[in-house]
């Protein structure tokens, strides 16, 4: 990257060097000079900013003779770019008067209902008035009256009287989320924020507008009147609602979560949250949480002590292993556990029980290890960092409605297009919300199930165009590929997929270096997964994206720690770090670390475990944090398995449908009540911290449960803390060696795939 050009400017007599073009409001922060503002926001385009006029400063330029030529009017520092010799004064008498004037203007129509306003205490308008405002108002006329507390949706309440027209929310909805559902109506003093005809505000990102609002005009319906900001504590956490790993703040009062705010992490979510993340953590403080272990007696659950529960489980496990062998025991779960817990779960099963029957996957494709991606691209699932999406030249969104499936990845994709002009190709059999957020993207409306043909057709065109990086494939592979593709002529592909030939060609023209493919559930669950991914890998390699930062193949994952669970070896055929259980050298290394012998036979995957259980073969089924009866891709199979398994243990926060089948139910702590790390879909390892105590002393973090159960099994796996466990993980899987808590930076670490190569 080119060196940033620096310019020398002067703020309040202090000379400093800043990057050319930096906004003065930012430059002032460097020297601790406070400039008040409302409408400015560094992530919103400056084109529509500068409307609150709060950040006015006096500015001039140094002349060659050393004198300063002042601009005749005060300037908005939020849009004033730093240039050589710029001289700025932020605190002159004129500016003080201007600020008083602006605040007086803002307050003439602003209701003084601060005591019952949710923004009270953390309100920029209050704060700026305190520091810069007039003590009294000279306004004696009637204030503007508009409907108050108007629910725009289940999440957002709008109070038009409080609005100060900063346009942050409208800019967000037009520039960032792209749904443009909020806009100003009318003009002048009658101007007001609205959705179209007061219809429901259905944006998937509506919660961000609440945080952006500098007053209490947009407030959260869920948080409404629940707390005062000064009565709350905050803890850093990670959102658990998808695999993106967004950084959030948990704001809580004693042992009760009251709201979730976005937390800055440039690499992941910048500062945004999706509504699922922002409003989807209510479960933590639900009244329906499990508060103690339950044991089934005479068909009914009764409250039990942990000692009873552990004894019961341990005796069934021991009995099953003794009578039917370790293969008669299986565990499902891990995608919702922390890395440390996932690691310990598989260690418990492998070391204390002696089985490889462990899996975290609930989706259709539970492909045996050594997936195409790992083998050919050297990455387990995703090649590119989330932040790199915005640098892509062409985004190819295949079979995914990102707005719905990966909302924050969608925001990056939109930024790539909106801010940086990336081309966008969207392939999906149906109209998706995602495609509505781009202006005229290339749309491949293929027939359901023809993804493979489509990609082959594109490969055909890429190869035909002569721009393909043929050296990326070994020559015999290339030849066989070319031979197999010969049938995929545009006309045939068009006929089969329903995508017009011209659109296929247009798409192929856009593919090249810097093409970044984003896939999600539809590809993960594709009936021809292996072939489809193989074709996508070929496309990635032939377009020169085999090892690029701003291009490549990314199969986004479903759950918060799907990636971590795979990394930790919650897989029937792989130990931590993607080493095969059948690989003797690797297994021996792990045996040494764990000081025990390990089963060499790959275990059963989820599907096989459930089938085995359904047929009555599985003696003990241990389900951790997954409501398989409800969420397994084949729920009927899951239910039959739960019915017919010899003994079922369910460990969860709630008495889920799955738990209803259990013989023992163990109450687990939520993410807010424990600590650990998650690995997000771009393999970034991030920490979360304990915010408050579990709702009952009988509710335990999964880590403790696994460790204690191991004791009852007579194979103690001593664990003192998640931190200590991470050190062991680093030994088991060297890529995680940099994730020890004392080394883990605030923004987390993307573990390096190069260590995978070293392993082999």
């Amino acid at each position: 990257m080119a060196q940033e050009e620096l310019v020398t400017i002067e703020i309040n007599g202090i000379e400093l060097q800043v990057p050319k073009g930096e906004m003065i409001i930012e430059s002032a922060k460097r020297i601790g000079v406070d400039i008040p503002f409302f409408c400015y926001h560094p992530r919103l385009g400056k084109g529509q900013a500068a409307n609150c006029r709060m950040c006015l400063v006096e500015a001039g330029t140094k002349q060659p003779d050393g004198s300063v030529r002042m601009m005749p009017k005060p300037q908005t520092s939020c849009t004033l770019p730093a240039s050589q010799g710029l001289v700025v004064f932020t605190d002159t008498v004129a500016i003080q008067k201007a600020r008083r004037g602006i605040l007086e203007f803002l307050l003439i129509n602003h209701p003084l209902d601060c005591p019952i306003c949710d923004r009270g205490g953390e309100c920029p308008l209050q704060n700026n008035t305190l520091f810069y405002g007039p003590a009294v108002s000279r306004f004696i006329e009637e204030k503007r009256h508009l409907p108050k507390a108007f629910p725009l949706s289940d999440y957002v309440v709008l109070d038009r009287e409080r609005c100060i027209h900063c346009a942050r929310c409208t800019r967000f909805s037009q520039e960032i989320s792209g749904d443009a559902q909020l806009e100003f109506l009318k003009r002048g003093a009658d101007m007001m924020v609205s959705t179209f005809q007061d219809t429901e505000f259905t944006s998937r990102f509506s919660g961000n507008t609440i945080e952006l609002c500098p007053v209490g005009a947009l407030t959260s319906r869920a948080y409404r009147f629940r707390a005062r900001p000064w009565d709350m504590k905050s803890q850093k956490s990670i959102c658990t609602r998808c695999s993106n790993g967004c950084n959030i703040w948990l704001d809580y009062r004693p042992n009760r979560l009251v709201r979730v705010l976005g937390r800055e992490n440039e690499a992941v979510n910048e500062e945004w949250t999706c509504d699922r993340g922002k409003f989807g953590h209510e479960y933590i403080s639900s009244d329906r949480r499990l508060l103690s272990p339950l044991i089934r007696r005479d068909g009914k659950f009764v409250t039990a002590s942990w000692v009873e529960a552990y004894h019961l489980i341990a005796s069934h496990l021991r009995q099953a292993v003794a009578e039917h062998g370790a293969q008669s025991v299986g565990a499902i779960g891990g995608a919702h556990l922390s890395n440390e817990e996932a690691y310990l779960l598989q260690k418990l099963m492998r070391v204390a029980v002696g089985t490889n029957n462990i899996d975290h996957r609930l989706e259709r494709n539970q492909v045996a290890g050594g997936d195409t991606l790992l083998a050919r691209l050297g990455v387990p699932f995703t090649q590119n960092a989330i932040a790199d999406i915005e640098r892509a030249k062409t985004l190819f969104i295949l079979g995914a409605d990102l707005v719905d499936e990966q909302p924050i990845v969608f925001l990056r994709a939109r930024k790539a297009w909106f801010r940086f002009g990336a081309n966008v190709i969207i392939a999906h059999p149906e109209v998706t919300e995602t495609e509505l957020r781009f202006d005229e993207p290339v749309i491949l409306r293929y027939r359901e199930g023809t993804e493979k043909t489509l990609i082959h057709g594109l490969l055909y065109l890429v190869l035909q165009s002569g721009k393909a990086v043929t050296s990326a494939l070994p020559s015999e592979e290339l030849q066989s590929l070319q031979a197999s593709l010969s049938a995929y002529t545009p006309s045939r592909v068009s006929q089969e997929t329903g995508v017009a030939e011209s659109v296929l060609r247009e798409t192929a023209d856009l593919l090249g270096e810097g093409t970044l493919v984003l896939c999600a559930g539809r590809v993960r669950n594709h009936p021809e997964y292996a072939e489809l991914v193989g074709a996508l890998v070929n496309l990635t390699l032939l377009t020169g994206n085999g090892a690029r930062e701003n291009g490549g193949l990314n199969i986004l994952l479903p759950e918060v720690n799907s990636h971590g669970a795979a990394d930790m070896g919650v897989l029937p055929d792989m130990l931590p770090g993607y080493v095969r259980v059948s690989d003797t050298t690797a297994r021996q290394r792990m045996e040494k670390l764990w000081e025990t012998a390990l089963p060499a036979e790959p275990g059963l995957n989820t599907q096989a475990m459930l089938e085995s259980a359904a047929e009555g073969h599985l003696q003990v089924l241990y389900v951790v944090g997954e409501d398989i009866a409800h969420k397994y891709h084949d729920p009927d199979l899951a239910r039959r398995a739960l019915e017919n398994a010899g003994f079922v243990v369910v460990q969860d926060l709630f008495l889920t449908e799955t738990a209803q089948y259990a013989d023992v139910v163990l109450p687990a702590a939520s993410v807010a009540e424990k600590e650990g790390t998650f690995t997000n879909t771009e393999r970034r390892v991030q920490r979360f911290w304990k915010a408050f105590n579990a709702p009952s002393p009988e509710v335990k973090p999964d880590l403790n449960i696994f460790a204690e159960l191991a004791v009852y099994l007579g194979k103690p796996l001593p664990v003192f803390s998640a931190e200590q466990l991470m050190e062991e993980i680093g030994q088991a899987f060297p890529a995680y060696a940099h994730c020890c808590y004392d080394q883990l930076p605030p923004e987390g670490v993307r573990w390096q795939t190069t260590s995978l190569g070293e392993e082999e």
Partner: protein
Amino acid sequence: MSEAIRLSEYPRLRRLDEKQPPELRFSERAVQELEHIKRHYPNKRAALLPALWIAQREYGGYLPPEALMEVAYRLGTSYAVVEGVATFYTMYNKRPVGRVMLEVCTNLTCSICGGYEILRHLEEKLGIKVGETTPDGQFTLVEVECLNDCGNAPVMQVGNRYFGRLTPEKVDALLEELKNSDAHTVVQLADTIVQCHLMESERQDIERALAKAQAMNEEQDG
């Protein structure tokens, strides 16, 4: 708690399905006109103002929500954005208006040259207040800002024409004339503005295309 109850008193807002195209009511002519006007600009969003004029004509002189949705759909932008634009400009009617709009200037020059007298006179004559429409739906009376024909103050805009140097007598005669004329209606104004956007060659193209479509229809019918 009490507030939570109050919130639930609000009816649940209507939810729009963005994936569902709205009802489209533009005539073939309107579609053709919009297509041509779009080509005047590097992107279709820029055709929003003319598109709203077309819609105002097509929807009978004002822009009901359906008109805004149709325009948004045809230009690939959001409903809210279109409503924001439509409500910014005063000449787009957001509510139904009379067949003819009488827009009396009372701005500076007109205010000192009898603009208010004309306005009062019209109120009396029509039996309505400023901003209202006569019960027969003929006239809507509006007070407007400077029409910039101050040399002829007091001035009134009626559809696509200005009438200046007004006196109560002139206004009375004019009202009689307007009752029997379709030359200066609200719809006529919108159409005039639309036609002003279209070049001669474009207008000819549209006529040819419409004639061809009609011929084909007749052929099919026959």
